[in-house]
């Protein structure tokens, strides 16, 4: 990589003399050059591994591409009409939507609850913080495998439920319970991250505000909704954007726990894309699904960014 070039480019600047023999080569120009060299790896990387593939994905989506037969034919919008007619499109979008909404709602609610609990004057909150955060550092596939084991019909979850007299379902084999399982496994994996961000934001809320509210006789619930939530709303917005975009990228959990089943009940868009492109070798159609995914991510991000104006009370 151009690492060494940058070193030379940046470090070679000699002690600036008052005048140089070539007035064109000013220290300002030298500094500009340093700027370009500093960003060069990231910029070239973005062009090569982000923007070029994005252009290619549009190009591929206009072709019928059979890898096994070695054909690559221009078919115009055929892949897009095929997408509109795909009987799986409805179920896939439904599964994607259910997963995203379930994950975001459950994740943010639990993260807020945990942050509020850890923000109390209690001994030992650090221990609980460590516990709630710990799944974030556990390998995603390892965590998913363990839950797959726990959620077997005769597994640990039903074993625990049985001790309190509840007869649990075969979690990963029922349509509703499979989706619920995938969501819950993912929430416990990553809720600690949002919790820590909320906690940091809550600790930044000035204590005087609560004291004043206390004097006015406001209940704790009222203080939470009228002081805490508005003041940490920039963090809530940021975490919700990250969580929504992250929820659209879920793949390993589905691949390990349910393989998209039972039926197509947990076939989210990325898993469907993977199946079409890399299991059935329909690269053109896979590219079309990629465009759909990109469109959804873009639309949701723009939407949330717009909501910021109405929703976020206080911009930090």
């Amino acid at each position: 990589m151009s690492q060494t070039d940058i070193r030379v480019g940046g470090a070679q600047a000699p002690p600036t003399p008052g005048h140089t023999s070539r007035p064109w080569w000013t220290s300002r120009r030298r500094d500009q050059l340093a700027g370009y060299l500093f960003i060069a790896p990231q910029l070239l990387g973005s062009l090569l591994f982000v923007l070029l593939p994005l252009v290619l994905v549009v190009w591929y989506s206009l072709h019928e591409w059979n890898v096994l037969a070695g054909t690559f034919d221009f078919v115009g919008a055929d892949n897009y009409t095929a997408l509109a007619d795909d009987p799986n499109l409805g179920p896939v979008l439904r599964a994607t939507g259910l997963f995203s909404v379930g994950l975001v709602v459950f994740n943010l609610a639990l993260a807020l609850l945990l942050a509020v609990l850890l923000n109390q004057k209690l001994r030992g909150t650090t221990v609980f913080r460590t516990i709630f955060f710990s799944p974030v550092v556990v390998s995603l596939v390892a965590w998913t495998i363990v839950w797959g084991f726990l959620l077997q019909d005769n597994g640990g979850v039903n074993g625990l439920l049985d001790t309190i007299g509840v007869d649990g379902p075969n979690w990963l084999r029922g349509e509703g319970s499979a989706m619920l399982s995938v969501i819950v496994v993912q929430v416990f994996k990553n809720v600690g991250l949002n919790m820590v961000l909320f906690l940091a934001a809550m600790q930044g809320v000035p204590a005087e505000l609560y004291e004043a509210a206390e004097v006015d006789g406001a209940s704790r619930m009222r203080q939470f909704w009228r002081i805490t939530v508005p003041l940490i709303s920039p963090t809530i917005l940021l975490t919700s954007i990250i969580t929504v975009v992250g929820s659209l990228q879920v793949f390993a959990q589905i691949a390990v726990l349910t393989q998209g089943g039972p039926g197509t009940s947990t076939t989210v868009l990325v898993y469907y894309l993977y199946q079409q492109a890399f299991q059935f070798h329909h690269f053109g159609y896979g590219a079309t699904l990629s465009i759909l995914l990109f469109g959804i991510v873009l639309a949701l991000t723009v939407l949330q960014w717009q909501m910021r104006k109405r929703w976020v009370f206080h911009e930090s």
Partner: protein
Amino acid sequence: MSRDLSPRTKLVLYGVLLVLAIPFVFPTWWMVTSSLKPVADIFAFPPQLLPVHPQLDAYQRVFELQPFGRQYLNSLYIALVVTVGTLAVSALSGYAFARIRFRGQNVLFLVVLAGLLIPSEVTIVPLFQMFFKLGLIDTHWPLILVPILGAPSVLATFIMRQFFISLPGELEEAARVDGLGRFATFWKVALPLSRPALGAVGIFTFLHSWNLYLEPIVFLSTPEKFTLPQALTQFVDAYGGPMWNVQLAAASLTALPVLVVFVIAQKQFVEGLAHTGLKG
């Protein structure tokens, strides 16, 4: 909300916290203890919270069935290279976007930021074709180059830029007046001050690489080249059913070292992420 609580309230809060802790602690406990059980006891009823017949057979099988040591090294070295590479790339570009004035800066920043809106799942099909044309399928190059230079490092660049903007510039200006060049100023003055941000970005990047699953299963096909997440799913019997205790032993070997490091360094970990990680 840091007011003193009555003993009764405290008791209730502890009770709630303990119940909430179960789904976070029990899986890890169950993973480790079950990996020490013989197959016959895995689904024993009532569940054995501690193994009744503890044994290490499953751990031996992990290394017999897969080149697991090799796969462990693959994951580790890829994650370390990606972390160091991402730190270098993102610190340099984050610094430049925050501190140096050059023509086209804003446009170039937007070009880079586009990566935030383009998840790597969107570009996996063309990336596969690009690396296929380069003859780099079934090598570790895609797992190293794309995270360091592509979309995953954009968030790192953004975080570093935000950090450098928040950093007072006087020290650097003094260094510049003393005749230090841009790179020397960056290397000797700004970088040592940005340790908290580098730590947060480094942790994020390591975990991201360590967790990658879609990319390895798309790009790699030889077991000797597999990474850990991919290897974990390979412990299946002749009928494709999971060999639970072997899988759980492999999962324990994957998860526990990182967990131990985290528990030891949890303060820096959590506070680093909270305070420098995603503010801005």
